[in-house]
């Protein structure tokens, strides 16, 4: 079902040594666990889930309050979104709630199924859903969820400013029916743009909003509506779940799940000896040595993220809250940017550093959104000669004879490159890029001579630090394909500070009424991708695979439960009591 055809050329990459070099492609992997041995699933059993992380989990175990990734992995086992999605992250009617859209009125009406109950037996009601909006919109709310997803709801801002006691745009029609009216109704809403996580109001009601996030109900005894119930928590380390017999889709197969944090360093061993059946994410750099692990199957999906090189083209105007382009910016010449794209061999980087588990990226919409990623677009390819020619023609020539090109005015050109530390290959990768640009005569230097620590990096990139000309970053793309949040004129995260009228237009079109028509929307975003490849405010470097390892005894598992494989967590099963160890 997934795309990723762009990796097809992989094989022609490099000569004979492929066997030894162990280069893989995303196509080598299934997304759903296969059942080759034909073993029968048993009733019950406990699954051991490894949450791969080198830190303890925070333990803010509620969709409305969590911030980090480890926590959401924990929540997913016992709670779930009321709305289900397909592989393009568009809502379907298969979830705990169904919905109707009224485009004219700009509203959506949701109906929660009758048999959807909280773990304590209370039914999940429209009130509960409303309650989560009231909490997140509350001035005392200390989480980070309050954003555009909420502000577009009618009356939300008034409520947030304490001008209104209620949110005028949200109506509880009856016990199970909720209607939300939006100020702006965009196609994004249908692609995971609705906050679909209810909160058990009967439990939270009496807790002041400011205290909720540290309350026991969030920390120790969380209550959800998912297939499993939290049984016990060792803070930061592990959680045990038991099945929720009352789950609305049906009684889960497994008796329970044990989740524990597993350090990336010990993942392989833990999988090998069967201590854990399943990990949320297998460290890709350890894959080649362990590809043949006999007791597990590796699955993979395309990650909703890409890395990119961004060019600083302007600044952020805090007053106007918009991007201001600087025509004199060092990187203002698109030919220079194009040449730099041509200079890097991302295909080889992906093959060599990541054994093919990351691969050359072409556009700013990754193939994780298969309907929108346009694989036909021809992005600049690795071509040193072409890069040189482009630079020569654009007037970047080495007039001083020091081996580096000067700018067209003949001034020394030093491009300052910011890249962040952390991650396994950060260092050599940054070095590699510098080397590559060096090869076309560009003098690129790391800012301050070293990689920047994550926070420092974003602080400075965000502040448009003049010492930074280009930077290497990574974006996780949202479930909605709309890139306005990253590339819009008014987007604070538009770190390249690129804006153009055409860009504004295209982005607006993607959210226009017409865009409710999917093929129209696809065309718009194709055009946008193309436009960005032409103008290169940033160029994507690598797309990535998300790798998961699953023990042979596990059945009914898909890499991404949400993304429409018609396999759900409650169906998970095992074929024997204990996990297999590797031979």
């Amino acid at each position, binding site marked *: 079902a997934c795309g990723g055809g762009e990796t097809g050329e992989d094989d022609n990459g490099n000569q004979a040594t492929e066997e030894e070099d162990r280069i893989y492609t995303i196509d080598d992997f299934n997304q759903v666990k296969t059942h080759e041995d034909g073993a029968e699933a048993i009733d019950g059993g406990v699954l051991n889930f490894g949450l791969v992380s080198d830190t303890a989990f925070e*333990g803010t175990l509620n969709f409305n309050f969590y911030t980090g990734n480890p926590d959401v992995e924990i929540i997913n086992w016992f709670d779930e979104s009321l709305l289900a999605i397909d592989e393009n992250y568009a809502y379907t009617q298969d979830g705990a709630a169904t919905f109707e859209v009224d485009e004219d009125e700009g509203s959506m009406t949701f109906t929660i199924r009758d048999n959807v109950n909280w773990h304590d037996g209370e039914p999940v009601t429209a009130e509960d859903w409303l309650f989560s909006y009231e909490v997140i919109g509350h001035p005392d709310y200390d989480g980070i969820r309050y954003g555009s997803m909420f502000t577009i709801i009618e009356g939300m801002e008034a409520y947030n400013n304490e001008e209104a006691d209620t949110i005028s745009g949200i109506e509880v029609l009856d016990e199970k029916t909720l209607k939300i009216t939006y100020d702006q109704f965009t196609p994004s809403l249908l692609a995971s743009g609705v906050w679909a996580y209810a909160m058990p109001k009967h439990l939270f009601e009496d807790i002041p909003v400011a205290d909720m996030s540290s309350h026991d109900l969030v920390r120790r005894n969380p209550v959800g509506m998912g297939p499993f119930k939290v049984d016990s928590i060792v803070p930061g380390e592990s959680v045990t779940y038991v099945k929720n017999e009352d789950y609305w889709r049906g009684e889960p197969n497994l008796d329970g799940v044990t989740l524990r944090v597993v350090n990336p360093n010990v993942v392989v061993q833990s999988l090998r000896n069967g201590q854990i059946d399943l990990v949320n994410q297998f460290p890709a750099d350890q894959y080649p040595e362990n590809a043949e692990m006999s007791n597990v199957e590796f699955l993979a999906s395309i990650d909703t993220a890409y890395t990119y090189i961004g060019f600083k083209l302007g600044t952020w105007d805090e007053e106007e809250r918009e991007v201001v382009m600087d025509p004199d910016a060092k990187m203002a010449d698109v030919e220079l940017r194009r040449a730099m794209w041509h200079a890097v061999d991302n295909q080889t980087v992906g093959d060599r550093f990541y054994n093919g588990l990351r691969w050359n990226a072409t556009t700013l919409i990754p193939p994780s959104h298969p309907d929108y990623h346009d694989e036909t677009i021809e992005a600049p390819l690795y071509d040193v000669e072409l890069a040189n020619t482009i630079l020569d023609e654009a007037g970047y020539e080495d007039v001083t004879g020091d081996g580096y090109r000067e700018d067209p005015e003949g001034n020394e050109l030093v491009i300052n490159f910011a890249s962040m530390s952390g991650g396994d290959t950060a260092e050599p990768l940054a070095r590699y890029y510098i080397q590559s640009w060096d090869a076309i005569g560009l003098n690129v230097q790391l800012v301050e001579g070293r990689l920047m620590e994550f926070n420092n990096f974003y602080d400075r990139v965000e502040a448009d630090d003049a010492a930074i000309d280009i930077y290497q970053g990574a974006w996780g793309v949202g479930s909605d394909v709309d890139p306005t949040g990253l590339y819009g004129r008014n987007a604070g995260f538009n770190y390249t500070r690129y804006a153009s009228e055409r860009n504004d237009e295209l982005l607006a079109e993607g959210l226009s009424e017409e865009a409710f028509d999917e093929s129209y929307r696809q065309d718009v975003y194709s055009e946008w991708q193309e436009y960005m490849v032409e103008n290169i405010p940033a160029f994507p470097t690598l797309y990535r695979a998300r790798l998961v390892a699953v023990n042979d005894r596990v059945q009914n598992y898909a890499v991404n439960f949400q993304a429409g494989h018609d396999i759900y967590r409650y169906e998970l099963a095992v074929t024997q009591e204990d996990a297999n160890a590797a031979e």
Partner: protein
Amino acid sequence: MWKFIVRRLLIALPQILLLSVLVFLMAQMMPGDALSGLIDPNIDPAAIEAQRERLGLNDPWHIQYVDWITGVVTEGDLGRSFRYKMDVTEIIGQRLTNTFWLSLVTLIFTYLIAIPLGITSGRYNDTFRDQMITGYTYVGFATPLFIFALVALWILGFQFGWFPTGGSVSPGLTPGTFEYFLSRLHHLILPALSMALITTVNTVQYLRSEIIDTKQKDFIITARAKGASESRVYNRHILRNSLLPIAAFFGFEITGLIGGTIFVETIYSYPGMGQLFVESINLRDYSVVTAVVLLLGIASILGALLSDIILSLVDPRIRIK
């Protein structure tokens, strides 16, 4: 005695205050804050900025400091972790217990190893046994803790599978049960042992030279002249007098452990203060960083105080009236 302790505490107060300022300032100087890591297109940067304002992160440092220290002093409130959204006191509470047990078991191992080895080595100095033990101390000295811990984890944790490879307790056990206790112990042994094996070498050496020193003291000859047998001389006179400085070292040992836990907890994914510290530094959760450093600083002070008290209890020469 009480006077002495009170006086020591009085001296410690300005130290702690100064420490708190230093720690706080350092935390402020760290680039970024807990919110700068939130790069998520689904979140509005303005919301983050509002959050910052709400948390007072945009105030000048001294105002933030006064706020913070007032909280600490008046209600023992060390602030709130940005990451965990929880009172730092509570987070540290869990981690502190873990580190406490780790340290305790390490200390027990340290002395279990050091005392017999030190005694043997000191008593039979320059014999084969002594050379073996001295050899061990040399090797132990030259092996950085983290290398040793890493290798121990690999061999004993993975290759042999004798010990768990992470965490502080197996999931799903009820606190308070014997099984729970055993599981905790099981999780502790390897980290504690590897730390002890490396850090104990100093104590072994110290004890050895202390015994060799004491052996030559006049009062040992007196004891012999009284007709005391060799074993009595060792057990009643030499040992007692040699263990004294070791006892006094006890408090400082605590300070030393703090450094060790950073490595060991990181390597064994043991959720204690050391791991918390490294995590929090990386995530700029500086209310936690501040609190951890402050607490461990206080622990050092108390350790030193403890040393003094122990020394004054066991050594009549400096007994405090």
